[in-house]
């Protein structure tokens, strides 16, 4: 239970939410009027389109590329039309497409019939997603009380899915609740999703549907052995944000890294593109019961964590607003923040405590994803381990929800198996040792910790007021977030945005909006 220790004024928090609403409104208008190539591809995936050409081009890409000039109508109707017109079974049609068959060469037949078929196809995939969600919920119920609090989150990043599986199983056996497979370095910039099981990646493993499936199976195995649900995580992020959300829904992932602005700032992806994509991907996540993890922590790797703490809080409000607009519930919003202050700051750990407690009290129902020190980690693994330990302490002491375990080798390499082992065992030690601390400790009402939290909230309001004044997009142009400037029409993926036409049809979108109560 979240108690009030900081005495933050409710009016100010409400005011911030109101500002977030105002800031996001014009962006949401733009989003409503547009689709993108990857939104269409995600739609096709949720109609069941599957397969890949011998050159590795996925069927959804081949279809959307072929329909480039028909995009404003939506790809779904044309894909369904091809099924109607050719009379082929879906798998067979996909195979032909993979071999080079261009469905755009087929004339539109009975549009209504095509639409109905498309909707039926979507319903088939949705029932698979429903089953996944029901299965997850039943397992969570069955193994209730067995997960750690906060959930212990570990990454694997070997580049090879089979190696990942070994490490993920070891990590879960050691005590991890959540396993995230880090993606290969450049995947976020690919405008397609690779296919099949993969064994080659730099600093991470390709996110493919088959890799998702392989990992899911491995984690389910450990789940039964440990009688503890093991959450699987990947990245609905980058140029294929919605498609990966779709894949995750189909393979029962449980969490997705998914931020409304991360791609813009940290991957130089076009902002219009990102905004449209994030909405669609989030509706899929919302529907499939997936928890999103937002990326505010990244800001602190380029900005100073002490000085720019307010940008993190501001971004949490914006991410929250965008998430509501996509139908996500608070329990699905793993808003990001991080323990990234310079370790030499006097009382720095107390300021971290203030920041974490503040987030906890402002977002009481949200799981909150708390990230470990990374920027100030160094080759000094011993000091690093102790910094991670204080991070573990603060996380438990403030009741964070999703706890990304820090690695003592953060500044050196992607985690070795032994690094993870050390991370889990030391976290379990401290968290067990202070199990009830949240109920035990109070803060002096006029002390440093309380004052700091109030100050950050005040600064956030000032900052958000400025963003409201000049607009979110211009604020990004002015490097107000993460000290990074991005231009409106610059960045990758700009060309993939399309204005929706009069007759735009997307059965997946409609079903999502309807069931999420957004229509």
């Amino acid at each position, binding site marked *: 239970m979240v108690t009030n220790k900081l005495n933050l004024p409710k009016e100010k928090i409400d005011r911030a939410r109101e500002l977030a609403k105002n800031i996001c409104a014009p962006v949401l208008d733009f989003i409503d009027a547009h689709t993108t190539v990857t939104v269409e591809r995600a739609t096709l995936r949720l109609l069941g389109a599957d397969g890949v050409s011998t050159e590795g081009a996925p069927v959804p890409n081949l279809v959307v590329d072929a329909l480039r000039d028909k995009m404003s109508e939506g790809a779904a109707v044309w894909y369904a039309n091809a099924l109607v017109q050719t009379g082929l079974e879906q798998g067979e049609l996909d195979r032909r497409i993979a071999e080079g068959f261009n469905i755009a060469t087929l004339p539109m037949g009975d549009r209504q019939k095509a639409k109905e078929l498309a909707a039926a196809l979507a319903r088939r995939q949705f029932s698979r997603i429903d089953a996944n969600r029901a299965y997850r919920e039943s397992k969570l119920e069955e193994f209730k009380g067995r997960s750690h609090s906060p959930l212990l989150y570990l990454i694997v990043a*070997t580049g*090879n899915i089979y190696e990942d599986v070994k490490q993920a199983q070891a990590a879960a056996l050691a005590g991890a609740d959540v396993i995230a497979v880090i993606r290969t370095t450049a995947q976020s910039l690919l405008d397609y999703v690779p296919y099949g099981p993969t064994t080659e990646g730099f600093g991470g493993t390709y996110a493919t549907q088959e890799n998702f499936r392989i990992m899911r199976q491995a984690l389910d195995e450990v789940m039964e052995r440990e009688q503890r649900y093991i959450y699987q995580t990947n990245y609905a992020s980058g140029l294929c944000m919605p498609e990966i959300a779709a894949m995750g829904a189909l393979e029962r992932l449980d969490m997705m890294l998914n931020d409304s602005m991360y791609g813009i700032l940290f991957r130089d992806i076009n902002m219009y593109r990102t905004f449209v994509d994030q909405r669609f991907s989030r509706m899929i996540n919302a529907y499939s019961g997936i928890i999103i993890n937002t990326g505010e922590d990244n800001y602190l790797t380029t900005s100073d964590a002490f000085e720019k703490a307010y940008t993190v809080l501001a971004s949490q409000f914006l991410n929250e607003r965008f998430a509501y607009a996509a139908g996500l519930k608070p329990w699905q919003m793993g808003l990001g923040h991080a323990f990234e202050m310079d370790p030499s700051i006097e009382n720095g750990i107390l300021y971290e405590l203030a920041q974490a407690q503040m987030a906890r009290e402002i977002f009481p129902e949200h799981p909150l994803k708390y990230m470990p020190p990374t920027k100030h980690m160094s080759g000094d*693994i*011993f000091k690093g381990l102790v910094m991670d330990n204080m991070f573990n302490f603060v996380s438990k002491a403030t009741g964070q929800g999703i706890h990304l375990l820090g690695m003592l*080798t953060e500044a*050196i390499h*992607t985690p*070795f198996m*032994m690094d993870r082992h050390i991370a889990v065992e030391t976290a379990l030690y401290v968290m067990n040792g202070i199990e009830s601390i949240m109920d035990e400790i109070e803060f002096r009402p006029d002390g440093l910790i309380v004052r700091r939290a109030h100050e950050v909230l005040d600064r956030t309001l000032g900052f958000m007021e400025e963003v409201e004044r000049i607009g979110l997009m211009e604020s990004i142009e002015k490097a107000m977030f993460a000290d990074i400037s991005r231009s409106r029409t610059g960045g990758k993926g700009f060309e993939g945005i399309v204005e929706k036409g009069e007759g735009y049809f997307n059965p997946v979108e409609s079903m999502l909006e309807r069931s999420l109560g957004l229509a």
Partner: protein
Amino acid sequence: MAHIIRPYGDTMDDGKVQLSFSLPVPAGSRALEAARRIALAWGFHEAEVVHMAPMSDEFTFFVVYAATQHGIDWDTVEGDRDDSEKPMTMDEINAFIRAHIGRKVVVVGACTGFDAHTVGIDAIMNMKGYNHHYGLERYEMIEAHNLGAQVPNETLIDYAEAHNADAILVSQVVTQKNSHVHNLTEFIELLEAKGERGRFICIAGGPRISNKLAAKIGFDAGFGHGTYAEDVATFIVKKMVQEGRK
């Protein structure tokens, strides 16, 4: 065919190892290179000095990650003892003594020399035991005499003779300058000088004692870190029966 194993970082056979050490040189770019070269001298390749910190004007601390191609053949590795041989429980041991020996087994133990660490030998011998494993005093069919710490080898042997012990337990915790090896060796030499080595089952124990080390010095067995009373008792009673001691 040999089954070669190597250290594992995040990929099979990558050979990754973490090291830390100090060198008696001032920190700086030469020191960094010295640390790297010394790691290479151990046969590591890709030695990366990831951290260097001065500890004084003359000493520097390093953390290194490196990779090795050395491997060893797993099939040729023999453990200190056979993990698959499980010890008997206290009840089983008592029953075993009743059935096969028919009288109480007398065990005398101490931490010898200047070594003042009683906790280890107490863990094995005292009623209370250790980690929810009762000690030998609790065993109905064992008569256990724990002489405590800082006991001279002579005193321990005299006591064992006087009480007609079946087994003598010697604990050694301090290992600095190999004082444990000296103490244990002296113990065996004293017994041998008296022609009484064969009279007792002799067991050494302590956090840095292995079965191999103890055997080399002339003990019947050695027990290290994490030993419980039942491990020792099982060994003693089986050995007694096996050797026909009654």
